[in-house]
């Protein structure tokens, strides 16, 4: 649809697809999108929130339905699939995290499944849900086709930094919690300043080094996922601007994401386990 629009340029098309739907409270009450340009931090990306919570609910409710009916007898096919995932995650955790924790395994499963489902939104062709949202909002086909739509719906939550940082800050909080729980506040702080150079006159250097190393973990975790999915989404959008030839190209790029999407979910999960295991170990 991009090729023959009069006022639609590639730039505005891409811009439109990379803009979140926003909501905020202004003097006039609940406002949306353009009205929120001055709202600063207290802006909510309602599309990111809605899709991520919807997909999270899909995850927990479908797994809950299996958990409720879990029998030790011959399992059904869905139960089998869920059990395979549970076993896969359980094995990854057991191989990497050597302490005993009731949290790590379900945490890893949640991260893997949730990130996977969020990434899966990347497979939905970029114009489908955006156009549908505009139509539901009552905009005419001409408006949508010419790129004048004022309805935004960015459906891949992991292409939103708020989503990936939301995840990684959650993991970071757990990292600190585990470090303090296992080593105590003193032990945790001691690792920050007395490592790697255990001489008092280098403590200041250790502190800078270790703090950066610690803070880099959640940031790299979030940026890696964001960067991969944002780039993937951007290329999907670019492919959508090239007209009819987008069909085979889109297919190839989507097929490539059979690899990228589960891999990114797996990496996020594995790094979470590794970080938590690093924080739980005494040096």
């Amino acid at each position, binding site marked *: 649809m991009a090729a023959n629009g009069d006022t639609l340029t590639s730039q505005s098309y891409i811009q439109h697809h990379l803009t979140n739907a926003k909501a905020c409270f202004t003097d006039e009450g609940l406002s949306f999108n353009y009205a929120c340009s001055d709202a600063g931090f207290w802006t909510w990306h309602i599309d990111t929130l809605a899709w991520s919570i919807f997909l999270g609910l899909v995850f927990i409710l479908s797994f809950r339905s299996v958990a409720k009916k879990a029998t030790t007898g011959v399992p059904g096919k869905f139960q089998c699939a869920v059990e395979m995932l549970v076993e896969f995650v359980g094995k990854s955790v057991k191989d990497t995290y050597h302490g005993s924790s009731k949290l790590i395994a379900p945490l890893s499963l949640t991260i893997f499944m949730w990130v996977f489902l969020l990434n899966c939104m990347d497979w939905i062709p970029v114009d489908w849900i955006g156009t549908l949202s505009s139509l539901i909002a009552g905009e005419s086909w001409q408006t949508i086709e010419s790129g004048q739509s004022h309805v935004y719906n960015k459906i891949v939550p992991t292409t939103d930094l708020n989503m990936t940082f939301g995840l990684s800050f*959650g993991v970071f909080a757990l990292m600190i919690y585990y470090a303090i729980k296992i080593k105590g506040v003193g032990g945790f702080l001691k690792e920050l300043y007395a490592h790697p150079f255990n001489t008092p006159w280098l403590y200041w250097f250790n502190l800078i080094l270790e703090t950066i190393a610690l803070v880099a973990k959640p940031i790299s975790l979030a940026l890696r996922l964001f960067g991969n999915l944002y780039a993937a989404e951007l290329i999907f959008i670019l492919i959508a601007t090239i007209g009819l030839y987008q069909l085979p190209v889109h297919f190839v790029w989507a097929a490539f994401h059979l690899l990228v999407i589960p891999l990114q979910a797996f990496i996020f999960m594995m790094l979470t386990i590794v970080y938590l295991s690093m924080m739980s170990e005494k040096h």
Partner: protein
Amino acid sequence: MNINATLIGESIAFFFFVFFTMKYVWPQINNAIEARQKQIEEGLAASEQAEQDLELAKKEATKKLKEAKSEAAAIIEQAKKREALIIEEAAGKARSESEKILAQGQAELEAERNRARAELRQQVAALAVAGAEKIIARSIDAKAQADILDQLVEEL
């Protein structure tokens, strides 16, 4: 990049989902998996045990069969010997019986012959006496010649 309040919302959602999974999803599924693993393990062990038992039973059966065969052979051997013995015994008995019967017959025959001979002798003697009486009735007294007649009878 616009970091905003969405971050807080996502963090809350994250902790909620993790909590829910930890409380209501993971333990149940994991327990079911572990229980089934245990069942399968037990089943495998039982089948292995059964296999061993079967092997043992087969050996036992083979042994029993061999024993029975050798026992049967021994019985047959014994029976054959016994048969021969019985036949021999029976043959011996029959032979002696037949000999006995034969001897008895012969003895009876002998006795009959003796009796007949004695009777004949008496009758012949009587006939001779009668004949001689008739011949010599007119001439001689029978009583006077009795010693000669007795002598005759004796010679018969």
